[in-house]
């Protein structure tokens, strides 16, 4: 596209070029990445001051990792995100198998609308709704464990797990399954031996996204957590309210690293293999 040029007034003229657009775009990318780069850079800063460079050091990582609150929050985050990813991916896979390649099914719009609901409702509204609902359940049952966080996260992760799996199913060639059926494979055998292996990369991709979404959640967790159930993001939010300590840079960088690894895995898994 960029090479599409035309002759005008004797010299080469690119029709897709609009004056000022490229410089704006370059500045946008710089502005987008500079703050993140600064944050990562200062996480390795030996100095206590957030604005002075005191040499390279892993000091703040040590401070963060030796803080019991941080490790507890990290463990809570991993447990919640792990369960949420597994549960949401499991139910999303079933729903995707149910709603694709069947032609139009009565009520399909209702299913789609319900599955995508967490993407439509502002997080703060869901947070308030769950706060009220779980307060009732807590009073009735006395249970205050991590179950509430896992339940809430599993629900709002469903659309993120569902979308890549559905996309994969819609793009899948039906002829392999037809061939299996022609060779007298039962529907279950066809699913187990043909469909599932082909779908596996998308299932993992969906699980990665669900994990990242759960790991990043602040608002809903902040509202429904019981005392002592801080996740890494809610712990960081609490720190920011008090004072700015450089170890938050280190925690952010670690969290950023996990997200990047997961996203790269997602892109590799969901890439079409031709």
């Amino acid at each position, binding site marked *: 596209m*960029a090479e599409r040029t035309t002759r005008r007034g004797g010299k080469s003229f690119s029709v897709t070029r609009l004056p000022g657009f*490229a410089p704006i775009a370059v500045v*946008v990318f710089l502005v987008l990445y500079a703050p993140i780069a600064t944050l990562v850079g200062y996480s390795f800063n030996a100095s206590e001051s957030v604005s002075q460079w005191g040499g390279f050091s892993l000091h703040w990582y040590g401070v963060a990792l030796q803080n019991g609150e941080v490790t507890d929050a990290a463990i809570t985050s991993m447990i919640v995100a792990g369960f949420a990813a597994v549960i949401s991916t499991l139910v999303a896979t079933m729903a995707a198998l*149910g709603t694709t390649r069947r032609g139009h099914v009565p009520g399909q719009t209702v299913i789609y609308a319900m599955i995508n609901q967490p993407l439509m409702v*502002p997080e703060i509204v*869901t947070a308030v709704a769950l706060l009220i609902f779980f307060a009732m359940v807590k009073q009735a049952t006395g249970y205050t464990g991590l179950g509430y966080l896992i339940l809430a996260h599993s*629900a709002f992760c469903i659309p993120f797990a569902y979308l890549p799996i559905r996309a994969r199913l819609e793009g899948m060639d039906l002829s392999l399954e037809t061939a299996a059926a022609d060779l007298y494979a039962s529907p279950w055998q066809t699913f187990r031996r043909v469909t599932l292996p082909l779908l596996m990369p998308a299932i993992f991709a969906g699980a990665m996204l669900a994990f990242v979404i759960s790991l990043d959640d602040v*608002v809903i967790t902040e509202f429904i957590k019981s005392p002592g159930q801080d996740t890494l993001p809610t712990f960081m*939010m609490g720190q920011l309210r008090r004072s700015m300590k450089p170890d938050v840079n280190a925690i952010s960088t670690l969290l950023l690293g996990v*997200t990047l690894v997961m996203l790269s895995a997602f892109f590799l898994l969901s890439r079409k293999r031709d």
Partner: protein
Amino acid sequence: MSSNEDRARAANTRTAWALSTPALALLALAAIGPLLIVLVYSFLTPGAHGNVEWAFSLEGWTGIVATKDIFDDTWGLADANISIFWRSVKLSLLTTVITFAVGFPTAWFIATRPPKARAMWLFLITIPFWTNVLIRTFAINQVIRNEGILNAILLKFGLIDAPLQITYTNTAVLIGMVYVYLPLMVLPLFAVIDRFDMRLLEAGYDLYASRMQILRRVILPITKPGIIAGSILVFVPCLGAYVTPRILGGGKLMMIGNFIELQFGQGRNWPLGAALSMTLLVVVTIALLFYVRTLNGDRKDG
């Protein structure tokens, strides 16, 4: 024959619903159902120490715009609330306009790169999109705060004598929201520009259109569905934003999201919080329905 087909179709429908049931049940329990409880709570009486008393009251709803004088029980306009709504709408609109102004050239730039480079630029815009909002807010805070990099640079070059107070102002919240929500504008814009037939530009230039005319008369009308999509995708989360105004506005400069939280915390007025949540939900739903309509219209047009 046709009864067989009917039976097959019925079986198909049953399977579709049966397989979707676990997901739908989970969503009904932990996402959709609780919204109904919020609706009920908005019509109850606030409890003395938070939560509610089970007595019908409309004060949650009237409390959105009106306030009762504690001395003579007369109703007046709740100026503080209205200024919060106004700030939310104003900052959300400004964020939408600014993200469009810088997002359109960015999307155009990405879409007009050669295919390999395009994938790379697109990936670069996707990474911030998936990065934690808290981390990104935190990162921008490091740049604009008094002891931050921006002030350090400006001081060093003698452009200012004292650090600029940016954090805890509306400007800080605006900068933060533009920074956080920009990818939501660029991605749908990229999607329409990517499908845009560049031959139209040649046709336009052949007919002696100027660059400005090409932009205003050809590019903008054709990319309108993407512009609407991007605007709604930015406006909607801005309106319900919580983290960014909380950190950069410093608790004083609230937006609707923070105001709702306040009702469940120190404010101890759960019905008002519930009514505010419902109002936000209705506004957002209307915006999204508009979005779905433009998407469908786009599909019909080709």
